[in-house]
C-alpha cells in the first residue's frame, strides 16, 4: 500500500512539474495582455519619470515577456518567488504568512462540508422515497443556487450581527494574544504551546468562513453520496449479503458505504480544488489574512510578481489536494491498488 501510494505520489509529482510550468507560462502571458503600470502606482510624490524607468528596469519589466518569464523561472528554481512591487518585500515572505491561514481555512471548510454532506447524504438515503427526501433534495438545489460570497455576507448578517454568536473578523479575538509561531498554523501552534484561549478563539473564528465554504460543498457531497448509495444498493453483492441474512444497517455501513464513498471521494478532490478559489472572496469578506486577501490586494495593485506567485501557489495547493485525495481514494479502493 505505502509503496503504491508513494509511486502514485511520485507520478503525480512528475506530472505536476509540466503542469506548473504551463500554468505559470499561461499566467505570465495573460497578465501582460493589458498595458498597465504597476510601478508608478507605488511611487512617492517627487519621483521623476526617470525613477519610474529605473524601477521598471530593477523589476525586469522592460524586457520581453519570454525573457521575463525565464528570469522569473530561474529565480523560482532557487526558491526566490520574486519581489512584490507594492510591498517591496520578498513574495516568499508574504506568501509564507498567508499560506497556513488559507490551508487551515480550506481544511476546516472541507471537513465541515464533508461532515454536513455525508450526514445529509445518509439522511437522504435513509429517507429515500419519502417526501422528506424530496424536500431535502429541493433545498439542496436551492442551497446550490447561492454562491459562497453571498453566504459569507448572509452569515455575517445573521450570526455575526443579528444574533451575534460568532466572530467574523480575522483569526483571533483582540483580547487574545498570538501564540508563539512554531509551525505557522495557528490551530497547531495554539495546541503545541498549550494556549487554549487562542485555540478556542481561533476555532470560533474559523466557524463562519469555513461554513460559508462548506455550504457550497455539502449539497454536492450529499447528492453524490446519496445517488451512489442508491446505485450501490442495487449491486449484486448487496443482494447477496441480504440473502446471507445480514441486517440493513450493517449492509449500509459495512458494505454499501465503502463502495459508495469512492465517487464521493473523487468529487471532494475536484471540489477541494475549487474551494481554494472560494476562499478568495470569503477571505476578503471575513478579513481573513490568507492567500485570497493577498491575491485581491495584488490584483488591485496590479502587483504582477505577487499575482504570479500566488496563482502558482494556488495551483500547487490544488495539485496537492488532488494528490492527497488520490491517496485516500487508493486506500479506499483495493481495485486500484491491485491494478498499479
Amino acid at each position, binding site marked *: 500500500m505505502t509503496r503504491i501510494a508513494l509511486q502514485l505520489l511520485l507520478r503525480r509529482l512528475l506530472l505536476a512539474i509540466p503542469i506548473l510550468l504551463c500554468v505559470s507560462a499561461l499566467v505570465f502571458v495573460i497578465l501582460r495582455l*493589458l*498595458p*498597465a*503600470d*504597476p510601478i*508608478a*502606482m*507605488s511611487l*512617492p*510624490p*517627487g519621483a521623476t*519619470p526617470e525613477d*519610474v524607468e529605473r*524601477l521598471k528596469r*530593477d*523589476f525586469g519589466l522592460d524586457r520581453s515577456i519570454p525573457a521575463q518569464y525565464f528570469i522569473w523561472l530561474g529565480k523560482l528554481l532557487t526558491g526566490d518567488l520574486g*519581489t512584490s512591487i507594492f*510591498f*517591496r*518585500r520578498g513574495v516568499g515572505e*508574504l506568501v509564507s*504568512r*498567508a499560506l497556513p491561514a488559507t490551508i487551515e481555512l480550506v481544511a476546516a471548510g472541507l471537513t465541515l462540508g464533508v461532515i454536513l454532506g455525508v450526514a445529509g447524504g445518509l439522511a437522504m438515503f435513509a429517507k429515500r422515497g419519502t417526501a422528506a427526501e424530496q*424536500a*431535502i433534495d*429541493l*433545498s439542496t438545489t*436551492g*442551497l446550490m443556487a*447561492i454562491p459562497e460570497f453571498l453566504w459569507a*455576507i448572509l452569515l*455575517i*448578517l445573521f450570526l455575526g*450581527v443579528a444574533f*451575534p*454568536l*460568532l*466572530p*467574523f*473578523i*480575522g*483569526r*483571533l*479575538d*483582540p*483580547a487574545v*494574544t498570538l501564540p508563539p509561531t512554531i509551525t505557522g498554523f495557528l490551530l497547531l501552534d495554539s495546541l503545541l504551546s498549550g494556549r487554549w484561549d487562542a485555540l478556542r*478563539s481561533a476555532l*470560533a473564528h474559523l*466557524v463562519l468562513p469555513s*461554513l460559508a465554504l462548506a455550504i457550497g460543498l455539502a449539497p454536492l457531497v450529499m447528492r453524490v453520496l446519496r445517488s451512489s448509495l442508491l446505485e450501490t444498493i442495487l449491486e449484486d453483492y448487496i443482494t447477496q449479503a441480504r440473502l446471507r441474512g445480514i441486517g440493513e444497517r450493517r449492509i449500509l455501513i459495512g458494505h454499501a458505504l465503502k463502495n459508495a464513498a469512492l465517487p464521493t471521494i473523487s468529487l471532494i478532490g475536484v471540489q477541494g480544488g475549487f474551494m481554494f478559489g472560494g476562499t478568495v472572496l470569503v477571505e476578503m*469578506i*471575513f*478579513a*481573513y*489574512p490568507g492567500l485570497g486577501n493577498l491575491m*485581491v*490586494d495584488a490584483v*488591485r495593485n*496590479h502587483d504582477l510578481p505577487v499575482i504570479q506567485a500566488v496563482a502558482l501557489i494556488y495551483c500547487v495547493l490544488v495539485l496537492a489536494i488532488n494528490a492527497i485525495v488520490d491517496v485516500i481514494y487508493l486506500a479506499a479502493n483495493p481495485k486500484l491498488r491491485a491494478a498499479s
Partner: protein
Amino acid sequence: MMDRRSLIARGAGLSALAALGVPRDALAQAAAKGQLTLAYPADVPTWDPNARSLAAVQSLYKTVFDQPLTQNPDISPKPALITKWGYVDDKGLSLGVDLRDDVVFHDGTPMTAADFRYSFFERPRAPVPEGGRRLDTSFLWRRVKDIEVVSPTRAIIHFSEPMPSAVAWFYFLCSYVVPKAYVERVGVDEFARKPIGSGPYKLVEYQQGARIVLEAHDKYWGGKPAIPRVTIELVRDPTARVAAIESRRVDVSIDVPIREAQRLGAISGLTSSIDAITDITLLQITKNGGFADDRVRLAAHHAINKEAISKAFFAGAATPIAVPAAKGTPGYPLNFDFPFSEEKAIALLKEVGHGPQNPINIKFSSTNGAFPSDFEVARAIVAMWKKVGINAELETVEPSTYQERLRAKTLPEATVFSWGNTSADPEMYGGYLLDPKSIFSAMKSDDLGPIFAALLVETNEEKRIAGYRAAHQFAAEKGYTIPLYQTVKTIVSQNGVNIVKYANGWTLPQTYSQKS
C-alpha cells in the same frame, strides 16, 4: 431558500459552537482592562516606515514611529522630535534643526542626531540591493546633500537645491526616524519584522493583513498614552467594518460607508462622525479629444453640481472645492469660487458649436471601488454633463492602468481621481497635480511649467504660498483642472471612547481615551 428544518438544524449546530464560549464576555473584559480595538481598512506594506509612501497607513506608522514634526488636529504643524527649525543660510540650502533630548526608542536607547542623519541621509543614500527594494525616502529626500551632526540634539541639513517643502515633508509620508544602531545591528529584514521606533506604542504582535497589537511605550516623550493596549483589526471589507462596530466587536471603526455611518450614529451607544478632510477628489483632465478647447473643459466644470454630489453620496459632508486643494489650507485662494451653472456651461458649449441636441463626445474613466463612491460619482457626473451637451462615454479603469495611460499620455479627457495630502502643503496639491513635469499630472500645459518650476525652489514661505494660491486659481480659470470636493472621513465609535478627529484624516489611537 432553506427549509425550516435545515435552518433550525443549522441554528442548533451553531449555537452549540457558540456555547463553546466564544467571546462576548471576553470582549467586555477587554474593554474593562483598558484595551481599545480599532477596525482599520488598510495594512502596512512593510514595517520599515521609510520604505513606502502610502497615505492610507500613515496613522499606523505614527503609532510606532515618530516624525520630526507632527500636526495638530487642525493640521497646523506641531513640534515633535524637532523642537526648533530654521534656515541657517539665506539661500535656503541649509536647514538647522534642534532635536529633543528626552526621546528613547522602545529598546531603551536614546534618539540622537545620528539617528536623524541615518533616517534622512544615510538610509536613502545606501546602495540599492538588487530587486529594487529602494526606499521611497531616497526619492523624497533626494535633494539632501548631507546632514551635519552638530551635537546629539542639533543637526544641519544641507540641500543640493532649495527644498522649501522640507518642513512640510517632516510631517508627511515616509519621514520617520528609525534607530540607527538597532537597524544596523539586526538588518533591515529583521527590523521590518520586529520594528522599533520611538513612537507612543510598541508593536507587540503583528499578523499580516489581520491585526496589529500595540502596547503603550512607558517612556514616551509625550507622556504615556491613555489607552495601554490597542488592537488594530485590519478589515478591508467596508461591510465587515460596519458589522464589526455594529456587533460591538470593535470600539472604533474607520472609513465605513457614509450612509452606514449615518445609520450607525443613530444607534444608541454609538457615535459617528462624518467630516471632510484634506484629501481631495478631482477630475484629472487632459487636452485630448473633445477637451482640446478650453471652453469645453470650463463648460464641463461649470456643469458639475458638486453640492448635489456631496448631498447624494456624502451626506453633504464633502466640501465642494474650486481648486485642487482643500478649503482652509494655505494653498486655497481666498474669495475664489467656480460656480455651478448649467447656463454658463451651455453658453460656453454653444460657442464651440455644441449643445444638448448636438452633444460633444468625450471619453471618461473612473476607478470602481478604489475610492469611496468613485464610480457612482462618475455616473452622476455623466448625467450632469448630458444635460448641457457633453456626451461622456464612461469606462472603468484599474489604478495601474490609469498610471500606465498617465505616463503614456493616453488618458481620456477626464478621469475621476483621488489625491491624498495630509500635510496640506500646496506643493503636495497643485505642485504635483498640475506641474507638467510631475509624474502625477495629467494636464501637461506648457504655461503651467515655469510657474511651478519657480515655486518649487521659492524659499520665501509667504511668497511661496501666495504663488500657489495664484497658480491654483489660474489653473481653474483656464480649465486645467476640475476639482470636485474634499474627501470625507467617517469614524464610528462606541460612546465610551473619546476620539480626537484630525482634519487631515489621521486616526491616532495615542490621542484617544476611554471615558470612565
